[in-house]
């Protein structure tokens, strides 16, 4: 498969996305992107005692967007909020075995979705 633009890892996550779906009673939800620019990612987090115990996603987008979403959920599950905040788009891209230059923005989107979801969680905490 690595003949295409995508690494084997990207293709694996594209074909077998981890944690695809929704979390009904999510602690935080982040949605970023807009359809006009091609990708929309929604990330659901379940947070308990400052720790991400579950993460799920729904993504409209290209192969890189789907794989970045999937990889992000994998990378943050079990992490503390502080640890998760340190996750960079480079780390997502690297964990995927690299993304084509034109697709780096997909990993940025994944980072953005994560931040948005954590923001949402904090907001909910504040107002709770």
């Amino acid at each position: 498969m690595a003949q295409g633009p995508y690494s084997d890892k990207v293709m694996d996550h594209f074909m077998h996305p981890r944690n695809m779906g929704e979390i009904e009673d999510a602690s935080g939800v982040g949605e970023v992107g807009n359809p006009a620019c091609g990708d929309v990612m929604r990330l659901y987090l379940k947070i308990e005692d400052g720790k991400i115990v579950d993460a799920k996603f729904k993504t409209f987008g290209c192969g890189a967007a789907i794989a970045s979403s999937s990889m992000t959920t994998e990378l943050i599950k079990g992490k503390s909020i502080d640890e998760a905040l340190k996750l960079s788009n480079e780390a997502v891209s690297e964990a995927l075995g690299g993304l084509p230059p034109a697709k780096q923005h997909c990993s940025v989107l994944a980072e953005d979705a994560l931040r948005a979801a954590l923001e949402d969680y904090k907001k909910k905490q504040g107002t709770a």
Partner: protein
Amino acid sequence: MLYFDIMNRVYFDHAATTPVDKRVLEAMLPYFSDSFGNPSSVLIEEGGPPRQALDEARKKVANLIGARSEEVLFTSSATESNNLAIKGLALAHKSKGNKILFSEIEHYSIMLQADSLRGLGFEVDFVKVDTDGLIDMADLKKKVTKGTILASIMQANMEIGTVQPIKEIGRFLKEQGVLFHSDGAGTCGQIPVNVQELGVDAMTISGHQFYGPKGAAGLYLRSGVPMRPILHGGFQEMGYRAGTENVPAIVGFGEASRLAQVEMEEKVARVARLGQKLWAGIASITYLHFTGHPTQRLPGHVSFWIEFVEGESLLLWLNLNGIAASTGSACASNVLAADETGLKASHVLTAVGVPPEICHGSITFSLGRENTEEEVDYALSVMPTIVDRLREMSPLYEKAKGGK
């Protein structure tokens, strides 16, 4: 239930390129190591057979499009033919005016010349198309003004399949004294084309879309129309295109043209029938929008986009299921571009009014003569599963469904 173990590929991407016909390759073979001479070596025996082979090929290509031999020039690709025609005609007619018209849906090899033409002192304007992809004749008439010297309007767009009424356009442009180039990369060798009837002054012909080899293409240039070369050097191609000729590829291009002409009727009927079946079957997918004109289109060409389904993901899943298709213009895929500036919405889809905020990539199935009814059935059986899967992942579909 997706299929990952595909033995036989289903190739529905003939607009991108086609395999070289075995008979065509056979015709080419003697010109690699045996009749290998340089056609410009006119004084030695080695130059004879390759030069005769070029003449023969020129005749065959000319026959395919109803031209005379001397009116066919060989280039290395449709892209080069398009560049030669536009820059070469524009420069040769600069004294008459500096305005050039393109349709909004030209291939990149026309579109992306605009900047360079402006640098040479030309003005470039774009003629609108309607939602079926047909040239807006009123807009064309409005935009042909005093200084207009040249218009380039493609015969068929490979992304949406629409075939333009070139004859009508040609008649109008002729009345106005405007030179008319038409990019026939999507049509010559695929549907009947006669340059006399169409009234074009120049037309691009591509061989690798009809079972000819890559590396040879043609430019029809009507007798007596002045044109400047863009590749300067030796005296090949009547002075219009320097460089040692790619003899084997040109021979193959000629033979592919001959075969295309002989087998045209049967092939067109066959792929049109399969295309209609595919079209009808696909129509049942919800939120699916066909692109291009419903009837004035390339045979065997089915193009569409689906709400809540991103084009690249759909294409990748089709590929994983053994089906080759394309998204956007087949020759302009840009996932490997240096940066994301190349990832804009297709200018063709935008031109036909497809809303970029709900469409992300059209899919084009372009059928060829080796495709079968079973392959169409197979594609029809696979499509709904893939579409469902991608929608299930999409936060947008859920909103649409949920009424939010």
